[in-house]
């Protein structure tokens, strides 16, 4: 004898709500009642299944590991694909959100019933059509959403590109080139190169915000803007233009001001981000230098960044090692300022770890060794060298997915012969 409850539950279910009474009674003869407790998984994606289910009470989550696709509740039907098609596996996992009772329909019994009662087949087809209609609606809705997001991201990408310099400084005797290849639509890497107004020095900057994607990109705009703003603010310009305290030694004054400029820019940026954004624990490694184009003298602060290298045809020279920690993390951090010199035919390369850690499909990294070896082998203008490194990187990774943003900045001293002017004590 079939319980009145089961008949009623079947009648209300999406499977049989428009089926004749006689069909409902037939189906009631082959269902079994079963239950799962809250948190219990009924089946996992990929398992072979032989049954479909109707929820009579409770609620389940349809999911793919931790991605929840939807929730189902009373009268909903699931599992019909794997139940009806013999070689089909479960397309998603089912886990109870609440204690749930189910009616279970086994494939063999169901097929047997269909052969006797075409109305049951009709009911099933109806369910499948409903399901397909919902899927199409859902796919359409998602496609619109994806298109909106893609447009937003594209706007973000364009705006972010505006945070990189449109042109690089061009001065006689100097050749500057840079490239940034983002791993995603937007990047956490950045570079900059510009002349400090009324000072004459060229600021060179390469940074790498931890992480990638939108979060890193938002912080990239903050780091880059703070550094640039502190280097060219009106106060700074006024101060740079102000009378030298020691007119007899303009060189020394220029050196002191350059020193102060660098120190200000990094300290203010560090303190600002560490104090105002500490909850996000976002930081950037950053290399900031001032180049005196008249002399090739370089003053720099390396904030936890991969050591840039000075090199020429005869080999790798000085490495510009870190002089302090990453920016934005430790409000009390102090940063040393170091000096270097770019002599005629010398080049400086500043790069992010996206270059050295670019990996091929065997997880082998491009490595600093490969990069440094390459630098001394290629005798090209800055732009040519940057392109060559990118080509070698592409050859090396052979289409393996780019894991991190890749940034290169190359500055080459193209003066002929000896540039024997002294600057900044160098």
């Amino acid at each position, binding site marked *: 004898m079939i319980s009145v409850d089961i008949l009623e539950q079947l009648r209300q279910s999406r499977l049989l709500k428009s089926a004749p009474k006689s069909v409902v009674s037939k189906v009631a003869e082959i269902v079994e009642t079963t239950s799962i407790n809250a948190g219990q998984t009924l089946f996992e994606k990929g398992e072979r299944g032989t049954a479909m289910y109707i929820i009579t009470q409770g609620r389940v989550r349809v999911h793919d590991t931790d991605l929840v696709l939807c929730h189902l509740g009373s009268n909903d039907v699931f599992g019909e694909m794997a139940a009806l098609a013999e070689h089909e596996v479960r397309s998603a996992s089912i886990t109870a959100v609440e204690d749930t009772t189910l009616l279970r329909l086994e494939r063999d019994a169901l097929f047997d019933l269909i052969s006797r009662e075409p109305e049951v087949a009709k009911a099933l087809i109806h369910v499948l059509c409903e399901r397909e209609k919902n899927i199409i609606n859902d796919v359409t809705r998602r496609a619109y959403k994806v298109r909106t997001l893609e447009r937003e991201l594209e706007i973000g990408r364009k705006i972010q590109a505006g945070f990189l310099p449109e042109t690089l400084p061009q001065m006689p005797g100097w050749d500057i080139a840079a490239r940034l290849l983002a791993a995603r639509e937007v990047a956490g890497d950045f570079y900059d190169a510009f002349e400090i107004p009324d000072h004459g020095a060229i600021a060179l900057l390469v940074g*790498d915000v931890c992480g*990638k994607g939108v979060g890193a990109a938002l912080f990239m705009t903050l780091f880059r803007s703070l550094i640039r703003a502190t280097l060219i603010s009106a106060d700074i310009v006024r101060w740079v233009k102000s009378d030298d305290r020691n007119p007899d030694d303009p060189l020394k004054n220029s050196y002191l001001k350059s020193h102060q400029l660098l120190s200000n820019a990094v300290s203010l940026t560090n303190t600002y981000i560490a104090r105002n954004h*500490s909850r996000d*624990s976002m*930081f950037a*490694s950053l290399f900031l230098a001032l180049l005196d184009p008249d002399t090739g003298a370089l003053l720099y602060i390396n904030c936890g960044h991969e050591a840039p290298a000075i090199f020429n045809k005869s080999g790798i020279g000085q490495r510009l090692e*870190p002089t302090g920690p990453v920016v934005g993390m*430790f409000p009390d951090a102090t940063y040393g300022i170091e000096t270097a010199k770019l002599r005629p035919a010398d080049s400086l390369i500043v790069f992010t*770890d996206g270059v050295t850690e670019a990996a091929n499909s065997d997880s082998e990294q491009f490595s600093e060794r490969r990069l440094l070896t390459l630098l001394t082998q290629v005798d090209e203008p800055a732009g040519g060298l940057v392109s060559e490194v990118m080509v070698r990187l592409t050859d090396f990774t052979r289409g393996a997915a780019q894991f991190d943003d890749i940034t290169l900045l190359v500055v080459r001293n193209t003066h002929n012969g000896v540039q024997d002017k002294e600057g900044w004590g160098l």
Partner: protein
Amino acid sequence: MSSTLEIAVAEEKGVSVLRLKGPVDANTQKDLEEKADELIRGGAKNMVLDLKEVSYMGSAGLRALHIIAGMFGGDDQSARFAHVKLLNPSDEVRRVLKTLGFDNYIDVFDDLDEAIGAF
């Protein structure tokens, strides 16, 4: 290359020792943070991260260290980092700690007893 991070937790002399196995990168950073959060909510006061079997730890991993130190609270960086010690990092992980300047803020040990004794 394995891409998951296994975290085994042991309690030794009142200190939570987390033995990590695998990479601490952008994909696994959250796992470490969540485990630390769970332990701290459960009352953990101090934590040693055993990095002996950590194959890779980049900036995402160091960010996780900063986030975990922040979970302990404290007035300044050194007060926060005082609750977390590192054990047995590889040479490569030590290099990353040094390059990014974390070596001045977080103590690194080769011996578990020493690490526990340093709290």
